[in-house]
């Protein structure tokens, strides 16, 4: 594994909200998140809406302050930085947003949008000649024409807009780009273009990606490692193929099973259709958070929160899952699933 660029330990974030049905006012959006991201690596962040993916992204962007836990970026804690040092750190983590129609200012030209970060980070490209040259270079890097700099966002298609969003994120030469559902608003044929671009840029620039997506097929294509989130916790993490092909946590298995597959061979596959929906994060279940929807929940699951268990596959690949009864093989999984249906 690449040397960790970013290390997160025990990150917890609680929001205070209006009273819920049970009188609870604390919403634990992140509950002890630990992660590492290596240099030039892509970490896929998978989970359903409300699981805390976006809160995690916002915390890493320092848009939220965590209650507990540490973030270490090459050994420094960004939350302890002030002034110039903080500005320097902000330059290194950038973000691409989901909706290319909402994330670009319609009153600015594409060139101005890409150049706007330099208004804050003045030292990067101090002269307007340098800035213009860099805008043209960035447009070229994301597959747009230099003349596109003068156009306004409305003149571009969704895919082209997302390219502008990527160029803006690249403007500060960041080390990490957080991609929050970067292709989910795009049509399939355009989605492939943008995924190709992201892969190409990573190879050229060595930038790390935190790739948030609900589309498991896409995550599998881009992510070296993957972390599956459920109600504010990372319930399973490891090397992408290892997690996807041999899920240990029942939720990961259910997620894999629920996502439609492009397979027209006609082979029937065992489907796990989970009962119910995501419990409210205001009133998470006791013990294991997944137990209310889990088909193999036992008494202990309601009482004791499972600790992450590191599982080593026969070929030496390791990954960890937070489950009292981790699925031990694909065979075991289909057996369990069959009895659940």
């Amino acid at each position, binding site marked *: 594994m690449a040397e960790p660029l970013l290390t997160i330990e025990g990150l917890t974030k609680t929001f205070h909200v209006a009273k819920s049905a049970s009188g609870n006012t604390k919403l634990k959006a992140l509950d002890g998140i630990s992660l590492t991201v290596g240099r030039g690596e892509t970490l896929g962040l998978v989970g359903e809406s409300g699981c805390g993916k976006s809160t995690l992204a916002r915390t890493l962007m320092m848009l939220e302050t965590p209650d507990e836990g540490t973030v270490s970026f090459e050994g420094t804690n960004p939350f302890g930085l002030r002034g110039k040092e903080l500005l320097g750190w902000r330059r290194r983590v950038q973000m691409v947003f989901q909706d290319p129609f909402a994330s670009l200012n319609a009153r600015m030209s594409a060139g101005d949008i890409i150049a706007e970060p330099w208004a804050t980070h003045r030292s990067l490209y101090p002269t307007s000649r340098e800035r213009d040259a860099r805008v043209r270079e960035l447009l070229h890097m994301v597959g747009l024409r230099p003349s596109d700099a003068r156009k306004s966002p409305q003149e571009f*298609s969704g895919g082209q807009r997302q390219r502008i969003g990527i160029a803006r994120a690249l403007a500060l030469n960041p080390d990490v780009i957080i991609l929050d559902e970067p292709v989910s608003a795009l049509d399939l044929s355009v989605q492939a273009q943008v995924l190709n671009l992201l892969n190409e840029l990573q190879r050229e620039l060595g930038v790390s990606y935190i790739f948030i997506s609900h589309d498991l097929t*896409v995550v599998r*294509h881009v992510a070296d490692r993957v972390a599956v989130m459920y109600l504010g916790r990372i319930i399973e993490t490891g090397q992408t193929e290892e997690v996807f092909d041999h899920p240990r946590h029942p939720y990961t298995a259910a997620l894999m099973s629920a996502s439609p597959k492009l397979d027209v061979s006609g082979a029937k596959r065992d489907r796990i259709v989970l009962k119910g929906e995501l419990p409210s994060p205001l009133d998470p279940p006791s013990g294991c958070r997944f137990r209310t929807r889990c088909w193999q929940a036992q008494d202990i699951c309601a009482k004791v929160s499972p600790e992450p268990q590191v599982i080593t596959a026969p070929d030496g690949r390791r990954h960890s899952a937070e489950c009292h009864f981790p699925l031990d093989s694909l065979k075991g999984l289909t057996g369990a699933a069959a009895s659940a249906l």
Partner: protein
Amino acid sequence: MKTAAEQAPATAAAHAGTSAAQAKAHDVVLQVQDLAVDIRTHRGTIRAVNSVAFEARAGETLALLGESGCGKSMTAKALAGIMDPVCDLADGQIVLNGTDLAALTPKERLKFAGPELGIVFQDALTALNPVYTVGTQLGEAFRIHRGLNAKQARLEAIDLMKRVGIPEPESRVNSYPHQFSGGMRQRILIAMAVALNPSLLIADEPTTALDVTVQAQIMQLLRTLREEGQMAVILITHDLAVVAEEADSVAVMYAGNVVESGPVAEVFADPRHPYTKGLLESVPVHLERGAELNSIPGSPPELHDIPPGCVYQSRCPMVQAICRAERPALRPVTPPVSGAGAADGAGLTPAQDSRAITPISAEGRPVRAAACHFSEEISNG
């Protein structure tokens, strides 16, 4: 409320003037031919849907597959007769159980909305009225079409909520839409669409706004309801994997035209239109991580600027002079060499309407068709 449920198909049939109370499996329920929809804009009239033809069969799912702006939702709205005021049905027949809906007045069509044809929209929160309880909204169909009073309609609503798997319907019938989760709201919308046991259900991107685990539940519900009522389902989606898993046949749309149609397994295994082929290759499966995806260059043409000739010419890797001059019609393509597809069709009953002359159907089963001058070459690689 069993008695009312049993009456339902009979009532529906009476409205539509058909003899059969329940369609038999694989009967053609809906036949669409030459459908064309125009939109009046300040830049002139544009054709959003152009000579679209397909069939929907009882107990089967037909997928309308396409990217945003391809006209799939417009087609659905034209079928349901709920187009925006700026849209006109320019041409075509929409034959539902023997009645051409396109020839009816809007008032006459109202009789079909509900008993014969139901529609499920993508965004359940905007499709439901926020100021009425779900019970009122679910019961509306029974009050209007069956003349039930509010009390009876409420009982029907509770029954429906049970049918679509909403827990504790007796207490939740008086709740408002915002008090339900996204998945539950979609269930309510589906319940409204199937309330009067229609023979055709149109589902317009029913799960796009939902999480995958909930999507799986909703798809399972739609399958169950389809089996129970032998409904023909038209599933509108942009998701190839959903089509592969849920649909029997597929019509691929591009820039307002059906460019390819046929049984899903055959179309996806051996696409005969370069667009279908390009879409299938854009899905990141069976690839090394980070490997180049075979994306389709460019983007779809603007509807007011569709060139003469093939609609796909600007993005097609194998475009020739003829493609720029002449628009290829949707015509049958030769079946694949293997007999796998033929075996599937053996059990099907022939269509009762032998006048079916669309290229979509022959001898009672959907055939492969593509709108490409070089569909044979694509098959050969």
